[in-house]
């Protein structure tokens, strides 16, 4: 069992029992669901929009090398720099070198999941460069020294009162400041100073526009706008899969991302940045860098069955739809990308040995695939991951033996019936002899937190035979259980 799996087991089992915590998340998701329902109604044909987004992403991924080279050439023509990072280390080192070279003392960041993936903040802080998250949710979880709970709503798991208390402790916000507006205002005041004095701004990108050499950034707060406007250096850190062929593709992707991400018709700021300040422009950074991260993505590209996982636009819709995410929360996954997309992608990027267990954190209900705005067949990818994990014999031997036994019993009618009888008898004996949920209970992992259903008196086959034996008519009126 990997370290990550042990953490998963511990955190998931705690979270699954924490009903008040789940209520906070469910309240937040109820607001989201209402907004997204209304958002989809704004489309004449939401399903067609998804299909076209899927097709455009497929086209981008099918010519990934060509589009990235085009993007690079256009960014260079605009006076920017492009760095290709094979690994998280390379991406981090490049940005760290740049920060040192420019004598940066304060770096500001707007939301970027890739920066979480490469652990950029820790690296910059380790080098003595103060690094501040400027998205309100990210700022809150940074103050708590916690990873984001959700890729779009990082502080989704927190109550307003907890945030008020946090701000009182860390920001000396006076007692009594506790409306959302007051708290946001307090963060704004603190961060405004940071914006005005930062040396370096770091953002992610939602899309890279190949035909124009532009990085597209979607946000609501204006923090990415400020991060890319005020400091003298701007770095865009993003994955190679974010490329789109044409600027005009955004006429589809911007509304689709907003709708799936928050339910808004369009997000407040959708910005396109293509280089440093131009001669004749009033402001803007004097240096502009794009860091393109591979970190395992080309391996996903090499697998034709999994290639479409690279279509993901990180809208968070699959997390919001996932009953497992609702129950175990965002922190149990222990990775940058939680929820269904994380359960598919992280094992592919970081290996089945350490992260394969995430592909089992799903009931395979398919809600994720249904809401995915780029039509990624998420639950089937989970099954594919499980198939490969099983064929590599990476599951615990106990599970393999158990499934072997099940197969032996289930592939013969008589054996199946006998095994069923035996199991029902055992269950009845157990509930009479052993206190449920106690240390001797063989079903303890289940019964510790929930009741085990009572064993039925007869099997379905027995019931069927008995009913069929009755005179016709009685079976229909008969006492179906």
């Amino acid at each position, binding site marked *: 069992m990997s370290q990550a799996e042990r953490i998963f087991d511990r955190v998931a089992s705690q979270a699954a029992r924490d009903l008040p915590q789940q209520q906070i998340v469910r309240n937040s998701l109820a607001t989201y669901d209402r907004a997204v329902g209304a958002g989809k109604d704004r489309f004449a044909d939401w399903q067609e929009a998804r299909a076209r987004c899927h097709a455009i992403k497929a086209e981008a991924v099918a010519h990934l090398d060509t589009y990235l080279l085009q993007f690079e050439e256009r960014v260079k023509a605009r006076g920017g720099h492009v760095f290709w990072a094979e690994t998280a280390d390379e991406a981090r080192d490049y940005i760290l070198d740049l920060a040192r070279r420019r004598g940066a003392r304060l770096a500001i960041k707007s939301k970027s999941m890739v920066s979480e993936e490469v652990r950029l903040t820790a690296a910059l802080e380790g080098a003595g460069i103060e690094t501040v998250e400027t998205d309100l949710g990210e700022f809150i979880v940074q103050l708590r020294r916690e990873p984001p709970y959700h890729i779009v709503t990082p502080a989704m798991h927190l109550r*307003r009162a907890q945030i008020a208390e946090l701000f009182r402790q860390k920001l000396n916000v006076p007692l009594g400041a506790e409306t959302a507006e007051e708290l946001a205002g307090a963060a704004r005041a603190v961060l405004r100073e940071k914006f005005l004095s930062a040396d370096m701004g770091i953002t992610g990108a939602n899309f890279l526009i190949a035909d124009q050499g532009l990085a597209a950034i979607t946000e609501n707060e204006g923090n990415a706008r400020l991060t890319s406007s005020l400091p003298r250096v701007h770095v865009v850190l993003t994955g190679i899969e974010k490329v789109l062929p044409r600027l005009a593709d955004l006429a589809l992707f911007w509304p689709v991302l907003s709708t799936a991400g928050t339910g808004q018709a369009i997000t407040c700021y959708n910005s396109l940045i293509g*280089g440093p300040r131009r001669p004749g422009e009033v402001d803007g950074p004097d240096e502009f860098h794009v860091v393109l991260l591979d970190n395992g993505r080309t391996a996903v590209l090499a697998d034709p069955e999994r290639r479409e996982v690279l279509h993901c636009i990180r809208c968070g819709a699959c997390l919001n739809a996932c009953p497992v995410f609702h129950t175990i929360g965002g922190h149990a996954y222990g990775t940058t990308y939680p929820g269904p997309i994380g359960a598919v992608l992280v094992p592919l990027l970081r290996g089945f040995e350490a992260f394969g267990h995430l592909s089992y954190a799903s009931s395979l209900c398919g809600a994720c695939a249904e809401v995915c705005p780029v039509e990624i067949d998420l639950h089937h990818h989970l099954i594919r991951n499980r198939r490969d994990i099983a064929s590599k014999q990476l599951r615990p031997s106990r599970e393999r033996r158990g499934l072997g036994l099940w197969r032996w019993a289930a592939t013969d009618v008589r054996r199946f019936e006998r095994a069923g009888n035996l199991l029902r008898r055992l269950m009845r004996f157990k509930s009479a002899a052993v206190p449920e949920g106690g240390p001797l209970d063989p079903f303890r992992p289940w019964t510790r937190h929930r009741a085990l259903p009572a064993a039925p008196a007869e099997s379905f086959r027995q019931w069927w035979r008995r009913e069929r034996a009755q005179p016709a008519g009685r079976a229909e009126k008969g006492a179906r259980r």
Partner: protein
Amino acid sequence: MDTESSRKRILDRMRHALAAHPPQGQGSAAIPDRGGRVSVDGIFAPIEDSLARFRAECEANHTQLHLVTAESEADCLRKLLRSEQIELESRAGSEKSRVFVEPIFVQDAPELRRLIEAAPMPVRWSSDGPPAGTDLAGITLAEALVARTGSVLISSLNGGRAASVLPPLHIVYAPISQLVKELVEAIERVQASGRVRDVSMLSLIAGPSRTSDIEKMLVLGAHGPRRLAILLRL
């Protein structure tokens, strides 16, 4: 760090991956592509009255839309700025933050010079440098207005990058000829005029900056402006 070899290795891996398993078809739907144009036909219901739609969307995203004429525009601008001054002073009283008495930051453009001439006030022009962070408002032109989403497309040539995001009030002055129905038309406009190539930044703005990061409660005025007003010149 050997930057060239990382680049080459990533590109080699991509080429190898795509050559070993060439993509079949283009996904589940054909892309209606007409010479680099992406069709959004059939995706959205058609818009009949651009102005009515724009007005409704602005209301939905908390943009203050004012239809102005040559006679009314100066007065409208004065009222807007006065209300902002009052708002900021009342906030300064309760929040003990500093009172903004700085001038207004304005994109240096003939249209806006005319506007300010009609409504004289202390102004800093964008040609004299970037906004200071203490300006009462930023006044800019736009590249296009989009009826579908009630949004404004601006570029770094509209007074720079910070003019539309640093002051607490952003005022956009735009002639009604800039109003288009669809986002795709706005994109085509800036692409056809060469604007996309000539600027370092473009931003499609829909309403004042906002956040819902605390218990999903909407707060207007996150890091950017608390108010966005459009003076739409008829």
